[in-house]
């Protein structure tokens, strides 16, 4: 009756990797955010239901608690996202320094709106609150790398770089 039938299907090997990470922190609710961040990197930048179930089981934490954290923090998503997540800072200093134009440039280059993922599954464009590098405003983070100050003109080069990186890999 209570068996969960997940309607999302993350690759079994990915789930196993996530299980191995989560297993190290059994009963450690305080490590949940860290585990979720690692899991998200392994699973298309998303904590889907099946990923959450594996984490809940291996950490002995209720699924509801995992869901609670995932839905609370903006850096987590329940929908699969691109390999590279572009997070444009929309806080006041970046805004004043022209963040809006940079976002428009990203939208134009990628052919998507803010909040969407490119059809090749490579990029997701998002905005975020202050990333703490106001001296480099307007700033953007792509996965763990920070770019700034950045002009609308530079966007195309940055994206091309990532596309090349992908092809080399």
């Amino acid at each position, binding site marked *: *009756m*209570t068996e*969960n039938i997940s*309607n999302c299907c993350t690759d079994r090997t990915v789930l196993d990797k996530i299980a191995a990470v989560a297993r190290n922190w059994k009963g450690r609710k305080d490590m949940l955010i860290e585990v979720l961040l690692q899991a998200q990197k392994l699973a298309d930048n998303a904590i889907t*239901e099946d990923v959450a179930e594996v984490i809940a089981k291996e950490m002995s934490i209720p699924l*509801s608690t995992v*869901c*609670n954290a995932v*839905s*609370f923090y903006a850096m987590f998503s329940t929908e699969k996202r691109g390999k590279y997540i572009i997070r444009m800072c929309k806080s006041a200093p970046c805004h004043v320094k022209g963040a809006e134009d940079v976002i428009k440039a990203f939208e134009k280059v990628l052919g998507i709106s803010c909040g969407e993922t490119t059809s090749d599954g490579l990029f997701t464009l998002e905005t975020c609150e202050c990333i703490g590098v106001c001296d480099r405003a307007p700033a953007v983070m792509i996965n763990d790398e920070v770019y700034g100050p950045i002009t609308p003109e530079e966007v195309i080069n940055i994206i091309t770089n990532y596309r090349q990186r992908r092809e080399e890999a």
Partner: protein
Amino acid sequence: MPKVYIDGTSIEVENGTTILEACEKIGVEIPTLCYLKHLNPAGSCRLCLVEVKGSRLLQTACTTPCAEGMEVTTMNQNIYNARKLVLELLLANHDDGCFSCPNNGKCDFARYCMDYDIEKSPFPRNKEFPPVDESGEFFTYDASKCILCRRCVRTCAELQCNNTYTLKGRGHETMVGLPFNQLFKTSNCVSCGNCVSVCPTGALSTKSGKKYRDWEIKKTQTTCPYCGVGCQIELHTKGNKVVGVEPLDGPANNNLLCVKGKFAYEFINHKDRLTKPMMRKGGKGSPLEEVSWDEAMSHIAEKMLAIKAESGPDSLAGFASARVTNEANYIFMKMMRAAVGTNNVDHCARLCHASTVAGLATTLGSGAMTNSISEVVDSDVILVSGSNTTETHPVIGAKMRQALLRGAKLIVAEPREIDLAKQAEIFLQIRPGTNVAFFNGMMNVVIEEDLLDKEYVENRTEGFEELKTLISEYTPEKVAEICNINAEDLRKAARLYAKAEKASIFYSMGVTQHSTGTAGVMCTSNLALLCGKIGKYGCGVNPLRGQNNVQGACDVGCLPGDYTAYQKVVNPDARAKFEKAWGVSLPDKPGLTITETIGAIESGDIRCLYVMGENPMLSDPDINHVEHALKKCEFLVVQDIFLTETAELADVVLPAGSYAETDGTFTNTERRVQLVCKAIEPVGDSREDWDIINELMDRLGYKNNFSSSSDILDELAGTSPSYGGYSFERLKKEQPQWPCPNKDHPGTPVLHIGKFSRGERAIFKPSPYIPAAELPDEEYPFVLTTGRVLYQYHTRTMTGKSEGLTNIMGTSFIEINPTDAGKLGIANSDKVKVASRRGEVTVEAHVTDKVAEGILFMPFHYKDGPANKLTNNVIDPIAKIPEYKVCAARLEKF
């Protein structure tokens, strides 16, 4: 003890008392939507704001503890405005379709809005809601009516400990819901409905609740008729129909209920209820026809008297019932003994806890839970063996989980990986029928590693040397092999249990229903005594009784060898006492047990059987044999609320009133006597059990002086030392646990403090491990064990009438390990044929890791695929309890 001033009134309160609790004490109402007595205060609704002198801001009364000299104002313009603003903000996103809301008339939120003069919110709606979740069987969730008090989330997490709900999102987008896109039906929800009971609005509401309004119903406080926990409930009735159940803050349940207690009340007014007496006018083989009470009763009396005259009183036997009140059982037992003149009276405790009654009475002097249910929350270590507590005693299961939240450790020794096992510190998946070896192994480690309580053993027990000698054989390695567990895990478990300050043992049928059941029970007390864990708070040996009044039916003497309060029929003093009280001479020889009665019917020694509220045709082992006997029985009378499988074979069927239609008492598993109160009149022409027996006794030539069940309790109290302090009047105010010898006695929450019931010392009764009577072999290679499921109850005469429960779990099944299933080519949901030496049934296979290889599990509730066609009726030599838990079986794809 700080002294505080509330609106000028001074009050002294305990340390840690919140302002809200202090206000409650002096009758000042503070509005609140999130506060609940048994939950940790959350302070989330912000409605209980009060002014504390010297504080810059208003304080939430539910989270602020009282401090010495604190001056609190509970109402002024400032407070009024603040509370009003909170309500207006909540109302902005609250669906205002109050007209069609099931909560109409009892809605806290609507009442507060009225109190604070709010008709419409000045703020715009800024939230979208998902569609109503109607996937559950019993209740619905409409997020647009939710005011985010989080009572449901907290009740589910902190009290029921099921963690079904989650808070999604943050800020103004926050919403209560289930994880991800789950619905009730696909979630881990167990339908206990405790969230519905605490919801202050109509967001969570019962499906049946949409059909009546609060002001149309009558509310009656009574005791739940399902398992032995003894939850206090409020029956809601509209006219002569039960329409709902709400939990009450009873000592055992503290506002919690399970799915059966909360929702399975449809049977009360079900169309299949027996409403008229029925008789086979043309003798055996003719159909049952409705007759008048007079005709039925005079026929029964005539037949009983004739059989008695021809073959003597011992040719009649009666089965009392663990389902009916103490009063009905007392008068039934009195009828058999005083009016018929036989001790042939027994009931289905024989089939569940006879070994407990025999075992613990020998070692400790009293065969009942030594401690109280509420103490489990304070235990440091809980050892569960032979009990799937969260399914069979769900509220106790919830309390065990509450203890785990407080840091307690759990040891589970069970053949199946039950839900509790997932949270256990140590889970020992023992082979069915190896409990004695397991407990001996525990004791071996305790003695070897010198973890025993020497002072306790020396001063309060006897027989230690004998125990030590026997136990020395049971090394962890040997036990590990017998039980198929890890020796190191056994050592860890023994250390954990022995070293804990407060450690309690809970067990149930998994220990008792064996041919070595009494030995198993004695082993639990051996272990507890060895570690000095009896007669102390939070410890003890706690057999969980399966039925609402199985404890009471035993207590009031529905046992072939015992009068009330376990006074023995073989004891001349006890007999003389009852002969004097009842004014008749009484037989001195113990009567036949249930299992023996069936045999005696077949041999022709018993000619008449009177069954009150039992269904041996499904509940007894080897039912092919039972059916044969009952068909052969010359005169079978069945008194019940439904035409059960047993009633179908009867010569006369009498319609009884259900628990909702009678007054009386039930005694729960922790020895607590609680009132059962009539909420509706008996349906149709049915009559209360005690009233039927009372008239029949009259016709049998014995006149009672009872005009109500209250009179019966008074007589019971007068003849039974441990029940001496009970009367209806007293039980309305308090519900003490027995022994309660007089009306001033406060009752006994913990037995054996300082002194054991049996005398100064308890006795060790060591037992060697003896394998189950029937072990797997080439022909029948599996071990079959049986048990219960959360969603059904016993032979389903009651739960089978609930549409919702039938939808959730309406058919029988058998659990089989994936490896075994693979070998036999069986897939999940396949039909399989299961056979033992006694019979065969066809059921659906559930392929699951829950059971180990070589083990099969079947619930015993179902008429289609009845597990008891397969079970072995070999019995324990002392308690005469059958070995339901182990038999050899084979299985093949159908």
